[in-house]
Structure formats: structure tokens, C-alpha cells
């Protein structure tokens, strides 16, 4: 192809391909810079992209400073400086915002949302609820192998009341895994209604008229979908006890929890998912196509529908498959979806132009602040590293989203795909061949040119384990394998 066009050929069709490419971790980095650090080592602290902001400095656990890219190819940002400050505790973040020492903060505690909304000097932004918190059920552990027992669990839980009592008003009780607003959500699917009497009847029918004892696992830290997992656990425990299921609460810190839960050690457990891209594959394939042991063996028919849906180009045909899958999951209850929660940001009212991102990756290039050209954003943790294709934390991604630009992008605050580094693209009917036409005159922050060769250099580095620059932070490039299914040669 020419110096500014690029063809990507897939080995299997992927209807969500553009959504995946828009992930900020897939923004190309300057090949000269990658070579300078040998593809790893200190590269994670010296990112060089093409984005509206470029990296300036990083004091670990304190702040990261970015500044406006000179001669940016697009509309230059109004902000000259953008600083991410680490303020671990939610009450401390709100204090700093009220004191005016920061201009915006991430992850308001749910208890603080009404407080911040009542403050005339602050604006609260709620992210669309692109996540799901659910109660997982391990079918490999009897009596949960009996569908009647699983249905009884679903009937025993008063989701509406739980969400009303423990969540901000914008949260919704979930009827299915795919949140509303994401392709593959079934609009009129009815979830299980709260019906303890029917739950008890089903348990009796299954041979447990007096209920049984089990464990309910609750993660040790708050997640966006379960900001207070301990309280959710207690409410679920009480609901289950009311129909005779005596669940003992078990908890671990997050790392241990994930490890043991995915190894299939839990009976009932809290878990959840945050959207990486707005497509049902991101929610359903993750949990129901097998691979992990936490929900028991996969359902063959469900796996078949999900794989067919992922390879179907026609939206109506895809939606029909997802409707079938969503109803199947409801009826067979491998897990009970509980809530779609929205996380909240707050900014001073002097800040304009910000759109809350459904993926927690707010873009700051359209943002202005009255009377000054710098913005300080307080957040709960530091980035781990800024070679984002090989990082797994949100705090790294939200910074990378300002420095790097993927081929296609999400319009700020939406799930709409707009041109990124590629100004247009074409796709073959079989969804296998994608051709991208890059913008002319785009430069990396180190002054080198962005052309098809530079983009190809990055793709080669990401997907070829034999590539000399496939080093990264841990060398695992988890985002790549997770999004695209494997490395070169697999």
C-alpha cells in the first residue's frame, strides 16, 4: 500500500473490530522512541504519541503532567497544561475540589454524589452505566447444578430494593448482562421478579425444603459496579436467608479474590464487568464462551450463538442471536445480573466542554477552564506505566488516551466511531479485509512522521512475540490477546 494507507487482514470476521481498534492502548507510538528504549525498560515512563497532549513529567504516586502538543494536526487543545494528581481517599478528593486546589476529581464516593450535587460551585458528571455487577453461581458445585436452585436464587433477590438502598439514583437494576445502550442489549427482556414464595417452592421441588448452607464471596475492595461490596453481600445474604439459603460471607483482597474465584473455588460470588468497547461480545463472550472455571462448564448452544453473532455483519441478524442468548442466560441462570451502576466525576463550574466517557477515559482536548489554561484532575491511583498496550489498569489508560491516538476513535462521551489517525476506511463484505487511509502531515511528539510504515511497525511490535521490540512492561501485551484472540502464529 502507499505511504499513508494500510491494510489489515483478519483471520476471522470480527463485527466489533472498529470498536476494538478505538481502544486508546492501540494508538501508535513513535518507532524511533520505541527503538531508543529497546521496546521496554524505561519506555513505560517516556511515551511519545501523536495526541493533543504530550508527556512532560511524572512524580510517582504524586502527579503526571502533560502539555499541549505544539503544531498539533487537529484543533489544538485550549489547555496548556493537564495534571493528573493522585489523591487516594474519596473524601480527600472532594475536599481538594471544594478547596479549589484541583479542578476536577474522578470516582466520587456514592455517598458524596448528593453532597457534590448540592454544591453550587461544582458540576457532577455521571458516566453512562456501561457495566454490570452480578451474582455468579458455580454450577460445578452442587446443589447449583440444579437449574431450579439457581432460579430460586434469582427469585430470592430483591434487586430493585438493593439498588434503591445502596446506589445513586442513576443506577439501574439489571435484567441482563449487556447494559442498555450497548449493542446486543435486549430492550424488552423481563428479568426475574422478586418472589421469595416461588423461590421456596422451587427449592422444595429440588429437594431442599429447608434450604441449605453455602458460601457467598464478596470482593475486598469497591469496584465501579459494586462500590460497597460488603453491603451488597449483606443484603444478598439476608435475601437468601429469607428463603432458607444460609450463605456464609467470604472475602479476600482483589488480587487473591480474582485468582481463587476464576479457579472455581467459590460457590456464589460477586463479580462484574466494565465495558472496554460498546458491543455485546465484550460482556457475553467474556463470561459464557468458556475459559474460566468460575461459572461451571459452558453451555454448548450458547457458545455457538455467541460465536455466530461475533462473525455476523448484518446488525439485525446479530441482534436476533443476542436476543436469544440473553433469554437463554436469564432462563438457565448461570449468574444473576444485579446492577448497572454509573460512576461519577465532579468538576468545578469553571470547567467546560467535558463529556463523561462511558469507558472512564475522558478526553481533555475539548475542555476549557475559565480564567486559566491549566487543569488539575484528582484521581484515586497512579498509572502503572504508559506503554498502555501492555498495562492493565484504568489509571494508565486515562493518561494514554490524551497522548496516543488510535486509527479510529470514539467521539468524546459517546460510543460513536469517528476518524482518528485514519481519516477514512473500507471493509470487505466478509469483514476480513480492512483498509485504512491515514491523515497526511501528522507528526509524533518527537517530530518524526506518522505514516503507514510507523503504524505497521507498532502492529508488528504488538502482535509478533518474535519482534525484537515486543518487550513492553511485562511482555505479555494482554490487551492485544484479549481483544484479538492471540499473537502471530497462534
Amino acid at each position: 500500500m502507499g505511504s499513508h494507507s494500510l491494510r489489515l487482514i483478519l483471520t476471522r470476521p470480527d463485527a466489533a473490530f472498529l470498536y476494538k481498534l478505538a481502544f486508546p492502548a492501540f494508538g501508535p507510538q513513535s518507532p524511533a522512541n520505541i527503538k531508543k528504549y529497546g521496546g521496554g525498560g524505561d519506555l513505560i515512563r517516556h511515551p511519545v504519541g501523536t495526541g493533543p497532549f504530550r508527556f512532560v513529567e511524572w512524580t510517582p504516586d504524586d502527579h503526571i503532567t502533560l502539555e499541549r502538543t505544539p503544531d498539533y494536526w487537529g484543533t489544538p487543545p485550549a489547555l496548556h497544561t493537564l495534571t493528573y494528581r493522585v489523591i487516594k481517599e474519596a473524601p480527600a478528593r472532594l475536599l481538594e475540589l471544594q478547596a479549589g486546589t484541583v479542578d476536577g476529581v474522578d470516582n466520587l464516593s456514592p455517598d458524596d454524589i448528593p453532597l457534590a450535587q448540592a454544591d453550587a460551585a461544582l458540576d457532577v458528571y455521571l458516566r453512562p452505566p456501561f457495566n454490570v455487577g452480578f451474582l455468579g453461581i458455580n454450577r460445578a458445585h452442587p446443589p447449583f447444578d440444579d437449574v431450579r436452585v439457581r432460579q430460586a436464587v434469582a427469585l430470592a433477590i430483591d434487586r430493585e430494593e438493593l439498588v434503591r438502598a445502596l446506589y445513586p439514583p442513576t443506577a439501574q437494576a439489571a435484567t441482563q448482562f449487556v447494559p442498555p445502550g450497548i449493542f446486543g442489549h435486549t430492550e424488552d427482556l423481563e428479568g426475574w421478579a422478586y418472589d421469595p414464595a416461588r423461590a421456596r417452592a422451587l427449592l422444595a421441588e429440588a429437594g431442599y425444603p429447608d434450604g441449605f448452607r453455602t458460601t457467598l464471596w464478596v470482593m475486598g475492595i469497591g469496584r465501579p459496579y459494586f462500590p460497597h461490596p460488603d453491603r451488597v453481600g449483606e443484603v444478598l445474604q439476608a435475601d437468601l436467608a429469607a428463603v432458607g439459603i444460609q450463605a456464609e460471607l467470604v472475602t479476600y483482597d482483589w488480587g487473591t479474590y480474582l485468582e481463587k474465584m476464576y479457579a472455581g473455588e467459590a460457590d456464589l460470588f460477586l463479580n462484574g464487568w466494565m465495558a472496554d468497547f460498546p458491543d455485546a461480545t465484550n460482556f457475553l463472550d467474556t463470561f459464557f464462551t468458556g475459559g474460566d472455571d468460575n461459572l461451571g462448564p459452558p453451555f454448548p448452544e450458547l457458545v455457538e450463538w455467541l460465536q455466530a453473532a461475533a462473525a455476523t455483519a448484518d446488525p439485525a441478524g446479530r441482534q436476533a442471536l443476542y436476543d436469544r442468548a440473553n433469554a437463554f442466560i436469564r432462563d438457565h441462570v448461570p449468574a444473576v445480573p444485579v446492577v448497572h451502576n454509573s460512576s461519577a466525576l465532579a468538576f468545578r463550574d469553571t470547567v467546560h466542554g467535558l463529556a463523561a466517557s462511558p469507558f472512564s477515559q475522558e478526553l481533555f482536548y475539548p475542555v476549557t477552564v475559565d480564567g486559566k489554561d491549566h487543569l488539575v484532575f484528582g484521581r484515586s491511583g497512579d498509572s502503572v506505566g504508559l506503554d498502555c498496550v501492555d498495562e492493565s489498569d484504568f489509571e494508565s489508560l486515562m493518561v494514554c488516551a490524551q497522548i496516543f491516538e488510535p486509527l479510529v476513535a470514539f467521539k468524546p462521551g459517546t460510543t460513536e466511531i469517528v476518524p482518528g489517525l485514519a481519516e477514512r476506511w473500507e471493509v470487505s463484505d466478509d469483514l476480513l479485509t480492512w483498509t485504512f487511509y491515514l491523515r497526511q502531515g501528522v507528526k509524533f511528539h518527537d517530530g518524526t512522521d506518522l505514516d503507514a510504515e510507523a503504524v505497521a511497525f507498532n502492529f508488528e511490535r504488538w502482535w509478533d512475540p518474535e519482534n525484537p521490540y515486543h518487550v513492553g512492561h511485562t511482555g505479555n501485551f494482554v490487551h492485544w490477546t484479549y481483544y484479538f484472540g492471540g499473537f502471530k502464529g497462534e
Partner: protein
Amino acid sequence: MARHIARRLFLLLPTLLGLSLLTFVLIRTVPGDPAQVMLGEHARPEQVAHFQAEMGLDQPLPIQYVRYLAHLARGDWGESIKTNLPVRSELAQRLPATIELGSTALLIACVVGIPLGVLAAHRPRSLFAWLATEGSLVGVSLPLFWLGLLASHFFGYRLGWLPPSGRLGLEVEMASISALWGGSPLCGWVPGVCAGVLSDSLSNFYLLTSLLTGNVPALADALAHLVLPAITLSVAPLAVIVRMTRACVGDVLAHDYVRTARAKGLSERATVVRHALRSAALPILAAISLQAGLLFSGAILVETIFSWPGLGQLVVDRVLARDYPVVQGIVLATGLLLVAVNLAADVVYALLDPRIRYE
């Protein structure tokens, strides 16, 4: 004395060895896996296994430990699993922040606590003595977390006198301390003193660096940021020091020789300070050196509330990330620090009390 110090230093070796073994085993006994934490929820099992192998975490524990010791003996504290930085440079960045915070807190506790305790002992049945004693009881019992948030709320937000959190304003420039001797032959003689770990770690003593380089705006800003966390951290040791001083000085004041001192016409002030306080100094000093150890556990909370980028925040972050090498490094470094504090206390004992002879 010199022999005593030499012996203590010699005993340091087995102490640190024991400490390192204990930390090594304990942190690995805690369930959880650094590979899983680093790679996140999307990692495939073979990626987790690959990462473990790369970090040597798949080896049997005794082999891992011996390897760790061998590296340590060469002065290599290992590399962080989370940031891939050398542990020594992570410590060099963070330890100064914690030392600055801790020593200021201890200084406040002593400067305020000892006079309060002496005054309370001098007038044991006064309202002041009652207030000092009961107040210190409240001080020991106050949850640091709550106290810190309250202080930050009132002084940082409501009154707006001091920054609510952080260590240095974003707009403040802090020059490297090596500006003082940069270009001198010293750079050649001491490795890292002009650019590198040593220079970085010295420069991270913000008060010292800004003072020595005559950077007044930076000094003022660093002090303003230090006030709230240091006072919060000082409350618990302050309370202990007040109670200890009151009790010890009170005991001494009841002795005959104090009565004699008063009888021969010595001023009350001289009696209390020169006779009573000096005699009571040893147990007070012992209490203070014990508080130095407890300060570190307090610093974990205070640093988290005040976003103070020190060792306390680091240890929380890295325990959760199961960053074994850094956690081991932190425990070893604080262990060394505490041994140094105790050794210093021993020396001061001998200086204060000529009867003490270390054999």
C-alpha cells in the same frame, strides 16, 4: 562505648537476616499473585505463568530466598515487579518524604509534650494537670484517619489556611540539591552524589534542599504542606510523651534531694529543670525512641489521607500489588532505620547518665 556500638552493629546482621526471612515468607504466604495483579482480569493462564517464570516466582521458595540474599549481599535490593525500577531508587524517592514527616511529627511531640508533662507534674492537682492528662488520653484514643480528614477539612477547606493535601505545590520548582556542589571534584569522588540515586534521595528532603539552596518559595510551600500531616501524626506520640513526662517528673519531685534543692534556695525553675527533669530523662527518652517505631505505622494512615508520597503509601500500594521485592525492601529499610534510632538512643542514655557504661 565504641565496643558497645560495634557489638550492636554486629548483632544487626542476624537481626536483619531474621527480618528478611520473616518478611520473605510472610508476604508470600498471603494469598494472591503479583502476576495476576499486574496482568489483570484479561490475562490468559499461560501469560500469568510466563510472567511468573520471568520474575523467578515459579522457583521453590528456598531457592528464591537464597537468590535474594545473594543479590542483597552485593547491594542489589532487586527490581520492583510493578514499575521495573530498582528497589533502591524507589526507596530513595520515598524514604526522605517519610523521614521528613516522621521526624517533624516527633519534634512537635517532644517540643510540646515535654513542657506540658513537666508543668502537669509540677502542679499535679491543678486544672491544667487534669486537662493535660485527660487530653492526652483523648489524644491516644483518637482515630488518626478521622483526625486527619477533620484537620484537612477545617484548615484546608473551611479556613483555607493550608493546603488540604500533597507534599509540594504543582507550580513550585524544587532544584536538585546537587546544585550546591555540582561541578566540584566531589562528583568524581562519591558516585551518585551529583546525579543519581544519592542526589535524588537527598533532593527529596524538600525542607533540607530548599533551605540549603536558598529556595525560599519552595521552603515556604513545603512547610505549609507539612504542617497538617505532621501535627496529625504527632498527636499520638505527643499524648504518650505528656503522660510519661508527667509520671516520671512527678516521681522525682517527691524525692528528698528535690526538697533539699528547694531548701537551699534554688529557684523552682532550676529545681524542676536541672534536677527533676534530668533525672527523669531516661524513661522519657525510652518512651520517645519507642514512639519513633510506632510513627511509621501511623505514617501509613496519615500519608494516605494527605496524599503524602512516602513509604507509608508505597507499602500499602505494593502489598496490594504483591510487589514482593519492594515490600521486602521497605521492611528492611525501616528495620535499619529503627535500629539506628535505638542505637542513637543508647548513646544519648550514656551521655545523660554517667552511671551507664556499656560493657
